[in-house]
């Protein structure tokens, strides 16, 4: 048999095999795809009004709706330590307590009568408002938004209601083990008094007065601190005119808002335990301080996170969940924030008798990523997942316009995302290992377990991770 003939026969066999091979049996990695249609990134227009309000405008006539989000430069980090909860209550009662023009109940009726919503809140690092309405009700919701942001009445009844709600939250805060864990782990990382971790107590709620809310609002709610993103079914000129109509005569203030404080963190290895007697599962948290989005190796950490603990296919998922069946959820992320460090945290909830086994396995995986470079498949998974999903950063108008508002607030370049994409394309397995070595400290982890120690597979003290400190989560009684 000649070589040529053999070649023909093999070729025929291959062709027959291809014909006989059902479609599902073809190698999924060898599929060829059509060209992705061009990604048209919608253009957001930024306008600054004379009084300093920054607008971000994006027309979208696909549905007959108007949506808006507001960001105000303030946050709970600005409230005094003996009045924790002030900012949160202020954010709530701005909406529920009515304005100088309408009561809160009247606003409820006006909005709910047309299926619209205007909501406000104040979080750790920003004040926020959101607006949803059919576009035919644009004037109504913008006027209500303006009244709420500019002239809240801070009705005493609604303040008391908000305080009753906070007291109730305090009394229930130890019911759910995962709530306990996430709250206490932040305190372990940032410190119990830190503005990034502290929480309300009966005493702090009781000291908050209407005057405090009025003062807080008066201090920070000024047009130069306000950004408004608007998207939906409108014409650019019309919506700008309406904003000018409802917000144009808002006078500037003179308060310079201080930034959040620096975080002082010292690495150490320690085990923390919280007794929860009525559960059959341990909630486990491991980690230490995290980083900033502006860090040089942020792109390397994106890939590192995906490989280590970023969901399906990650090392933590594959081992703790899929291989060992130890947990329903097993995740690990080195998180980053714009203006204060994030947290490196790993989490799993496992049955009590596999508590220490799960801890050991998670630490093994953290150590592993510092020594074992990602395989070709892992790099494919860790990078391509990010790169191929890039279009999903632009699949809704809300994502596009809100991102621009946030980047503008933090002074990030508008094309930050595109630049990061280019950086992720260039990440190598070695860079992932270096990022893990630089940023992860498996020898200096805080471990927190919420559960029943008597049911664990071994005492926490035998893990060799440092002293075990029992955290008392008894709620200080209301005086």
């Amino acid at each position: 048999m000649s070589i040529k003939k053999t070649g023909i026969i093999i070729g025929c066999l291959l062709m027959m095999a291809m014909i006989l091979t059902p479609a599902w049996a073809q190698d999924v990695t060898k599929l060829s795809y059509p060209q992705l249609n061009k990604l048209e990134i919608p253009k957001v227009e930024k306008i600054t009004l004379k009084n300093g309000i920054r607008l971000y405008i994006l027309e979208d006539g696909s549905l007959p709706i108007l949506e808006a989000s507001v960001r105000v430069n303030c946050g709970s980090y600005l409230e005094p330590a003996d009045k924790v909860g002030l900012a949160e209550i202020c954010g709530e009662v701005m909406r529920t307590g009515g304005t100088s023009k309408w009561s809160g109940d009247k606003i409820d009726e006006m909005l709910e009568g047309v299926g619209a919503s205007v909501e406000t809140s104040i979080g750790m690092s920003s004040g926020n408002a959101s607006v949803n309405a059919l576009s035919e009700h644009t004037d109504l919701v913008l006027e209500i938004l303006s009244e709420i942001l500019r002239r809240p009445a801070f009705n005493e009844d609604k303040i008391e209601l908000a305080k009753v709600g906070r007291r109730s939250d305090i009394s229930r805060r130890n019911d759910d083990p995962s709530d306990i864990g996430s709250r206490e782990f932040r305190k372990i990382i940032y410190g119990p008094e830190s503005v990034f971790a502290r929480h309300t107590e009966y005493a702090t709620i009781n000291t908050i007065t209407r005057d405090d809310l009025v003062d807080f609002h008066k201090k920070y709610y000024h047009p130069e601190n306000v950004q408004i993103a608007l998207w939906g079914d409108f014409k650019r000129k019309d919506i700008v005119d309406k904003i000018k109509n409802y917000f144009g005569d808002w006078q500037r203030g003179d308060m310079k808002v201080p930034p959040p404080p620096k975080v002082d963190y010292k690495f150490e290895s320690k085990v923390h335990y919280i007794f929860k007697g009525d559960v059959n599962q341990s909630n486990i948290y491991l980690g230490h301080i995290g980083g900033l989005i502006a860090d040089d190796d942020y792109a390397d950490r994106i890939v590192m996170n995906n490989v280590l603990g970023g969901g399906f296919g990650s090392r933590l998922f594959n081992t703790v969940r899929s291989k060992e069946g130890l947990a329903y959820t097993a995740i690990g992320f080195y998180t980053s924030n714009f203006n204060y460090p994030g947290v490196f945290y790993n989490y799993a909830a496992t049955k009590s008798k596999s508590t220490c086994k799960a801890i050991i396995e998670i630490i093994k995986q953290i150590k592993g990523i510092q020594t074992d470079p990602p395989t070709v498949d892992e790099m494919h998974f860790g990078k391509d997942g990010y790169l191929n999903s890039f279009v999903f950063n632009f699949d809704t108008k809300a994502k596009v316009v809100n991102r621009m508002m946030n980047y503008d607030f933090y002074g990030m370049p508008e094309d930050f995302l595109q630049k990061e994409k280019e950086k992720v394309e260039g990440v190598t397995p070695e860079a992932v290992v270096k990022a893990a070595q630089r940023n992860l400290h498996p020898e200096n982890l805080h471990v927190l377990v919420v559960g029943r120690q008597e049911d664990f597979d071994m005492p926490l003290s035998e893990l060799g991770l440092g002293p075990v400190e029992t955290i008392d989560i008894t709620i200080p009684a209301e005086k």
Partner: protein
Amino acid sequence: MIRYILSTLILISIFLFAGISAAIEFDVKEFALENGLKVLILEDHSAPVVSYIQYYHAGSKNEQLGRTGISHLFEHMFFKGTKMVGPEEHDVIIQSNGGIDNAWTGWDCTCFYENLPSDKLEVAIRLESDRQQNLNLTNETLESEREVVKEERRWRTDNDITGFYGAIAEQIQNFTFVAHPYHWEIIGFMNDLDHITLEDCLIHYRIYYAPNNSVVIIAGDINSAEAMRLMQKYYGSIPSQEPPPAVTVVEPPQEGERRADFHRAAQLPAFAVSYHIPNMSNPEFASLELLNNILFEGRSSRAYKRMIYDEQMAQMVNGEVLTCEQPGWWYMMVRMQEGFTTADGEKALYEEMERLKSELVLEKELLKAKNKVESDLIFGLQTNENRGTDIGYWQVLTGDYHNLYNYLENVKNVTPEQIREAAVKYLDSKNRTVVTLVPLQSEED
């Protein structure tokens, strides 16, 4: 996150309210393969992304006592590989291609989905068609996934008292239904999870995971003809199966209030209430949805305003009219404030219900409820995944997605008299089940 159970109801999504119909009317193209697989396609070229959603008409309702939870466990097993794809590799392939994938199980159906850049549609079709026919079920993968599901049950049900799938919600189902398979929670009883065998899984796979028991929805920046060419290529040769056995159990009428106490460590009391109601295809369902709206939706709703604002007795009041294929239940949950008992809460809640039975609701209040349904609908239509999920849900559970248009029409036409009739008929104490959370701490005190 992953593989979650159907959390809230996939309520009502695509309706055609007068005045906005043109703006939200979708061009749904309908196809069917010879093996019975139904395909619905919604082209949307606003962004180069696509959602691929595959429903199977099998949920916890299709289970038997002793094997409860198998639908949800099987949903997990669907990620354990095929002859061509290794365990968990499905997720890795989808994510490497820039997508996300997940699945959920409900009382009446199970749903798998992928959101991808639109050029990668074929990989979703390839993978879903593969696991419809070539799932690699082994004792090893069953054992590991069984443990994962048991952890999920501990996390979602055992240790979450008042969550939507928490311990009280499970108790309410257990007491509301005595014969119908809605008696058990989707996650199943822990002991049953321990006794599901590989043979059970193989039977479940053969009976329910056939093309003629499935609906696929493709929504996004794709060409319908090309999408159907791929569907034919990958699914065309999969044989159809005998239709699954129908669930014929009928829940006997409830003839008196059922009550149960539930003792757990907690700070404050809470209670859940349920009433038997008709299924989502019933014309009265629209009145019930509006009734729920009038009682619970928004700060100006009756129960919210009275119990939270005016009397400040409750921390949370919530009601959901559950969209079920067969006669289901209306689920309500109230968490009390300190200083108030569940008896206080029940009294206030039932008094508001009595008002709805004795007085006609004002047109203005009814219109407000209709507007809320309308706006919820429109704001829920902003992603391919939501549109596809909702259309598919109505298609699978009612046999025709057009029924949601009928539903909208019903909502639009509900009168104050119909609201009162529905309140009298369903909010009857004899039709009621109550589960009360008794904090253990209080008992010790």
